């Protein structure tokens, strides 16, 4: 169970997140909002990659910054895709599995590549992958093993439509046994694949509701307003 309690975070003089609270037990939670509404900051805090200025984030009662150190608990795919490296995708995924203390790395690498449709790209160098390819690599490493909490920051931006659909199908499959928090601008896919949506807007309290409570027009309008 992911518990976000009265979360607040400033970046310089700007209050990015203010008094955000929600719980998320299992399934796919899509985080939607315009640019600068704090999606990335929220995800970084949830993934234990940044500290909140106020409040806390817990995974099964343990702060996520501590839970992330336990092998296989939390998988995080950040927006950053600066992977200008000569190592191959297979080596990259193998390294990430190793560093997380996961066993049977070859099998796990193959499984996640199959799940996301990356099997043909496994032996390509990261530096040679397109922007979308690198984004896929980032998502793949987050899904390695069977993390209980998966945090993905815009995993399908720069990814073609058919791959995006495949990704969201994979997220739905993972959502049966894990909690996924995914930020996205792809309103249509989020509405069809996510279980709930957390809507972030500037100057407005965050709103968490089942997907059925939102319409595509409402979300598009909210994103447009930022």
């Amino acid at each position, binding site marked *: 169970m992911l518990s976000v309690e009265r979360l607040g975070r400033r*970046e*310089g003089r700007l209050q990015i997140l203010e008094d955000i609270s929600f719980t998320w037990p299992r399934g796919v939670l899509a985080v939607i909002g315009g640019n600068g509404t704090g999606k990335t900051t929220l995800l*970084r805090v949830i*993934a*234990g*990659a*940044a500290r909140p200025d106020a409040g806390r984030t817990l995974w099964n009662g343990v702060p996520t910054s501590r839970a*992330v*150190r336990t092998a296989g608990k*939390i*998988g*995080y*795919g*950040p927006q*950053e*895709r*600066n*992977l*200008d*490296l*000569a*190592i191959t995708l297979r*080596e*990259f995924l*193998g*390294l*990430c599995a*190793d*560093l*997380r*203390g996961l066993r049977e790395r070859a099998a796990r690498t193959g499984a996640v590549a199959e799940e996301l449709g990356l099997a043909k790209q496994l032996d390509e*160098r*990261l530096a040679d992958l397109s922007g979308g390819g690198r984004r896929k690599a*980032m998502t793949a*490493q*987050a899904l390695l093993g069977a993390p209980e909490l998966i945090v993905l920051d815009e995993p399908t931006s720069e990814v073609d439509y058919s791959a995006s659909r495949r990704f969201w199908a994979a997220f739905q499959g993972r959502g049966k046994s894990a909690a996924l928090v995914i930020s996205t601008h792809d309103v249509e896919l989020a509405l069809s694949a996510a279980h709930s949506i957390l809507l972030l807007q500037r100057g407005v309290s965050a709103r968490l509701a089942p997907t059925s409570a939102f319409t595509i027009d409402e979300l598009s309008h909210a994103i447009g307003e930022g």
Partner: protein
Amino acid sequence: MRSVGAFTLARLMMLEALRRPRAVLATIMLALAAGFVILPNPGAPYATLTFHRQPLIYTPAVMGFITGGEFVAFAILLGVLAMSALAPLRAWRCVFGVAAAPSRSLAVGIWIAAFGLGLFLLSCIFGGALVRASTVLSASGDWWRALWIFFTWAYGLGVVGAAVAATIASVLTLRLSTRPALLMGATFILWVVVIAAFVEGPIDIAGQGFALAHLFPQENRSSFAMGFIGGAQNRAGVASHAVGALPAVSGAGQFLLARAAIVLAALLAAFVLAGPRVRPLVMRSRATTHVLSGSLGKPSNLSARYGLVGVVVRQVWSVPPWAVVLLVVALAVETMHAGDPISVVALGFAWGLYMMRWPELCEAFEHGALRSLVQPSVLGPWPVRFHISVGIAVQMAVLALPLAIALGGAGRLHGLLWLATQIIVAPLLCVGLARLRGGATLFSLVAMLWWYLMISGNAAVPMG
């Protein structure tokens, strides 16, 4: 510690380096050349290296000592330079961040990779030195035994430099991998201040206790500070003694054991100093967070009001506060002691700190976000390069003003020319090198070498 992850990381970093053939070739050639240059020519008709104004007697051991000793002196700079040229640190940092692994595991992996790289560089330098040493090895009668002596002395000393460099590289890489110039600067400060002042003596990195005692038994240990080769002409000394192979020398076992212990201690230090888990990399503008840049006006206003000049000034003065404090102290010392040798030291220090910012700025322009500022311009990038060059020259001139006034007042024309040359050459070098990938690192190295020369007194203001 997840040793499997650490070894995988080390292996992949090595592979990464090997898959950049041009960078590897350049590194090998540089190291070979360095090895060739480090070792004086024993066959030259003039004395290239003397003690007490007497030419050294070259033996395989003496040559090995010089090779290993000089590698120790420059291992950290060489290691960091090679790592930043061969492995894109920012991209690795991205991997570290998402791996959710403890920094200790990463530090050990980087340490192993850096140690391997250090030994590789030492081997290249040894190879370069071997070309010089071949006549000495032949003259000994038993070429292979002489080679063994040369090898044991060179590696007996050099292994410590590789280990210490690996520790510093691994710890700093985890902390400063997104700021190559600061990485180089911090490395240099650690090398000059921490290693030279606190560490070198107690752990005897340079082998002053054992090695020098055997090679130069009547020499005072204090004569062998870092850089003794450059200043050896002025030191008291005696002709060196020929020493046999290191393992056969009395006390060599203890010497070798001590070096093994230092390597182990360096690895443990990297493990302990690795710090908390590495956070995923988040690119952001540091300019908005610093007090000084804020006091110059709101950064965005500064850029908007003064255009490119505003952008350049804002980038430069977004240095960390500690660097600004050191800069002010250096300028104050320069002002108070203008005309004295101390002012040259202060000037070198101030310029070194200041110049650390330029490569980052220039590289940001050539390869990064700043480029987008000028791409829409029909004028192309040259006006920006011109602005940056002039900006560097003007600000360096301001830093050097107290010294320039003192030199002018004393009528020292050569001194003024010496200053002017630096003010003209540094911007050209910076802007020129920034056009190369990794040029910022090269500039940092050149700037720091110049800094070191000024601080050490080897680049004194010419008389007259």
